[in-house]
């Protein structure tokens, strides 16, 4: 076991890294799979599949806990540099983590997500209706950010008519850098979102409904109800995790599908092909590129000694391209099968919204492929300046042959819940 450190300058938030995230990671995987970066006060970065998975599974040794004590670098949660806010239950360890997840586990199970597919397709059709006669669109702001935002709000039970402020705020929080006017606007938007959520939480205490917000309001850990701030930390996680990540994956997929008519045709014709394409895009373009942990004891990882209290960044993006696990790891193999990528996380913190994210993706992309079959991405497409939080696209302008409006009405969250309860025999089906 090595006690020497291979020191590198690795800054996952830098513009240089954003320009080609997989390049630097491939070098590390080959030359220094457990390297010490001198950025942000110092942290280890693990890049091989085996090491990343082992650490992610061992939550006792590699802690996610965030004690919000910024003086002490220990236990500062799952992002580097640490967030001044806490996400629940993302920044808890077992056994508390499992108790928290149990409050929403059944509501987030795969059958519940599948019941929403028709509703998500309808929302996609509603937004496509707004621009389909124009012949041009900016995909991010006009379609692939609003629909995941609405899906997330509907899941929580928040008014979906408010989607714009949530969609813009959480997209901007991920897309902008601290100290810029855009970030300030996003932070102001966040305050508005939080005030609206607080009002809805207060309402659910008096008028419980069949929604996730009510589950959290009524939720108990060891017989004690959740304090207000923990409910807000949960809602922050669902909004942050639900809105911009799915948008990012759809963005990468649209870029990949540009100028590939045959691939579009096969994805349109075969739901299984669309599913495999989605998994491969998850592998190669992980929306969340990495998460951090804190070592709770001296431990060996990949032959390297890691000291108690040191921070470790686990790179999902790199693990997904590890040649030891994936053939043709650098290439996009659109029908790769099986595809045990790590993009929804590994171990007890597996993305609790993964089933909803997959259904949203399929619903939205299938409507794009059906209604805008010949879209062409313009040269103005621009990815994020930093991929340290979310690896996504700031804007994707495109042109296409105008098509007919379907006249799909905008459903409220209550109507969506109604739709879900009626499933699988939902009312209308669009071709």
């Amino acid at each position, binding site marked *: 076991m090595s006690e020497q450190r291979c020191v590198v300058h690795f800054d996952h938030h830098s513009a240089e890294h954003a320009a080609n995230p997989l390049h630097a990671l491939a070098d590390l995987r080959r030359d220094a799979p457990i390297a010490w970066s001198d950025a942000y006060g110092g942290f280890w970065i693990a890049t091989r599949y085996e090491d990343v*998975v082992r650490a992610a*599974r061992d939550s006792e040794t590699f802690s996610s806990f965030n004690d919000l004590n910024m003086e002490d670098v220990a236990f500062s949660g799952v992002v580097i540099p640490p967030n001044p806010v806490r996400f629940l239950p993302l920044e808890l360890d077992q056994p508390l983590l499992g108790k928290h997840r*149990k409050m929403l*586990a*059944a509501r*987030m*199970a*795969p*059958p519940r997500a599948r019941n929403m597919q028709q509703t998500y397709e309808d929302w996609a059709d509603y937004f496509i209706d707004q621009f389909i006669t124009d012949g041009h669109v900016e995909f991010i702001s006009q379609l692939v950010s609003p629909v995941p935002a609405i899906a997330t709000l509907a899941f929580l039970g928040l008014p979906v008519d408010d989607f714009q402020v949530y969609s813009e705020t959480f997209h901007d929080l991920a897309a902008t850098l601290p100290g810029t006017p855009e970030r300030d606007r996003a932070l102001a938007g966040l305050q508005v979102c939080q005030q609206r959520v607080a009002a809805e939480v207060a309402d659910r205490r008096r008028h419980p409904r069949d929604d996730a917000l009510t589950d959290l309001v009524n939720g108990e850990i060891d017989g004690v109800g959740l304090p207000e701030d923990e409910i807000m930390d949960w809602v922050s996680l669902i909004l942050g995790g639900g809105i911009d990540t799915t948008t990012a994956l759809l963005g990468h997929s649209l870029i990949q599908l540009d100028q590939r008519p045959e691939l579009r045709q096969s994805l349109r014709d075969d739901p299984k092909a669309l*599913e495999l394409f989605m998994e491969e895009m998850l592998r190669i373009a992980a929306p969340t590129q990495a998460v951090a942990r804190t070592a709770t004891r001296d431990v060996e990882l990949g032959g390297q000694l890691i000291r108690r209290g040191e921070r470790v960044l686990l790179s999902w993006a790199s693990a997904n391209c590890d040649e030891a696990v994936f053939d043709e790891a650098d290439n996009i193999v659109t029908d790769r*099968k*099986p*595809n*045990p*990528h*790590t993009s*929804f996380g*590994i*171990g*007890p913190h*597996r993305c609790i919204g*993964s*089933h909803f994210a997959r259904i949203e993706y399929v619903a939205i992309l299938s409507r794009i492929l059906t209604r805008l079959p010949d879209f062409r991405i313009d040269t103005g497409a621009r990815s994020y300046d930093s991929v340290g939080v979310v690896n996504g696209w700031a804007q994707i302008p495109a042109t296409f042959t105008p098509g007919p409006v379907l006249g799909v009405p905008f459903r409220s969250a209550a109507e969506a819940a109604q739709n879900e309860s009626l499933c699988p025999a939902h009312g209308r089906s669009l071709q």
Partner: protein
Amino acid sequence: MKLEVDKALCSGHALCWREAPHIFPLDEEGYNALADQGPIDIAPESEDVARQGAGWCPEKAIRLID
């Protein structure tokens, strides 16, 4: 062929279920309902699809016993 699902490893990705729902049922919370039930017999005609389902699991929670 038999297979066994490790409850400590299953994290509820549900990819086994997506691949082969008749072999890998889910519990109410979306985790593999066969977890910690001991070895389960797999009929010869279902072996291929059971292998596929196990191959998707990023946790390697499904152990095949030939």
